[in-house]
């Protein structure tokens, strides 16, 4: 009986450890040249105005990605966009990092609607469905960019920095 109790206890302990180590929610940290650092999980993400971008995927077909404008997130963090995006602020860039360590960067001016109509979003859905785990939960989608290399998957961090 005692033996069973121990086995049961070990089993429960094992399950709880597993639960602890593998159920955290993926979030994105927004840091660097910001006035308000942000941590964005699904709940925070849904509070932003949602929009869509259509772009071709590897299969050559158009897909509709939905999510939020990267510039909206940066604006909330107090990044120098809009009227403030001039002078030395044009030497700032956004470095986006993924779970696998992959990094891509955007000049702030690439993200500002005063400079461009091209839309860059942080997407959480493709064709109405949540992104698959290997791509999500958050992925950058760039309207009309020919190569997909900057459509970085599994985004974990966005850091605004000054070029040195």
């Amino acid at each position, binding site marked *: 009986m005692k033996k069973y109790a121990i086995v049961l206890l070990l089993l429960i302990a094992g399950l709880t450890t597993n639960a602890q*180590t593998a159920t955290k929610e993926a979030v994105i940290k927004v840091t660097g040249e910001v006035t308000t650092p942000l941590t964005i999980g699904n709940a925070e993400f849904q509070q932003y105005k949602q929009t869509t971008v259509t772009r071709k995927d590897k299969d050559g077909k158009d897909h509709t990605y939905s999510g939020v404008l990267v510039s909206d997130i940066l604006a909330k963090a107090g990044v120098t966009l809009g009227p403030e995006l001039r002078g030395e602020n044009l030497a700032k860039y956004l470095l986006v990092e993924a*779970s696998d360590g992959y990094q891509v960067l955007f000049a702030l001016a690439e993200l500002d609607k005063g400079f461009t109509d091209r839309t860059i979003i942080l997407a959480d859905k493709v064709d109405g469905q949540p992104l698959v*785990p*290997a791509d999500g939960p958050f992925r950058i989608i760039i309207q009309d960019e020919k190569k997909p290399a900057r459509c970085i998957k599994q985004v974990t961090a966005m850091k605004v920095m000054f070029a040195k």
Partner: protein
Amino acid sequence: MGKICLVLCLLFAIVGLTAYKGMEQVVPMGDYIFNYPANFGNRINVPADNPTTQQGVYLGRLLFYEPKLSATNTVSCGNCHQQSKAFTDGRALSIGVNNGLATRNSMSLANLLWARKFFWDGRAASLEDQVLFPLTNPHEMGQSIQASVQKLSNTLLYPGLFKIVYGDSTITGDRIAKAIAQFERTLISANSRYDQYLRNAYKPTDDELKGMELFNHGPDPEKGIRGANCTHCHGGPKTYLELFHNNGLDSISKDEGMAAFTGLVTDRGRFKVPTLRNIALTAPYMHDGRFKTLDEVVAHYSEHIKQSVSLSAFLQGESNEMGGHSLKLLPKEKKQLIAFLNMLTDSTFITDKRFGNPHQSTKN
């Protein structure tokens, strides 16, 4: 009498000065200049509080090969990171003090100057942080920093060297780690046949060239392009991109990998993509050393990728066959790929005297 005294005094002074100068010559002094090809890029990682100096590298090399830093006075960093094996040890899991086994396979130390995250799971943000782990881990060198400091302080050699490097003879764990990190940053491998090819100094064989093509291309059966897609993670002249992936070894990885500290289910079994520099010398392969040969490694990527929720996206559905689920390289292509991987062996790196054990020539 006075004259004789004066002459004697001068003589002593000259002898003394010569001896001092002799000591000075033993320890090279000044900034350490890293030499590497321009195509390696300058995104190097040297912390502002540990600039690399010749004297620091000199001390670091002695410490790297110093068995007194282990509980049994028998294991140095050099045991599990042997120069002849590109600073690995040929074992699936290294043996530490008291025959304990390390948790993961010993990693090559080539070209760490460009690394920003260390260990198989990338948990250390600097070499200085990384160094302290094997020193104290009970299954590796197994000795507390205090004990190491004590042992080094009791030697004739080290207090004087610490003074030369740090300005005073105080020995601390931080200073030990900094010196070892300095030495490790100098372990640059940049003279393989691949490097020679990149600077037009070597003409590859047909197999090597075909292997290189496969290495560099992703498969695209619709366009008739055959490839192994290796550069997706091992790209660039350094064959290292500092990425972390679940490469489909298991459907449920026993080793949690990065998930142990990120807590993300998609990080389970996610490990560092190591450099392929000297890959022919660093068997066995993977974080647990499960593959004994490069043939097994290539066969894994070609046919045995295991699907899981953590499997990295680029390994899903990449195939040389229409609608295929794995690479499906031909036997000949596997051979060619391995011929190219052998081009990455840098024989000057593994015989460079600057990286070898210095203790044979130093009284300790």
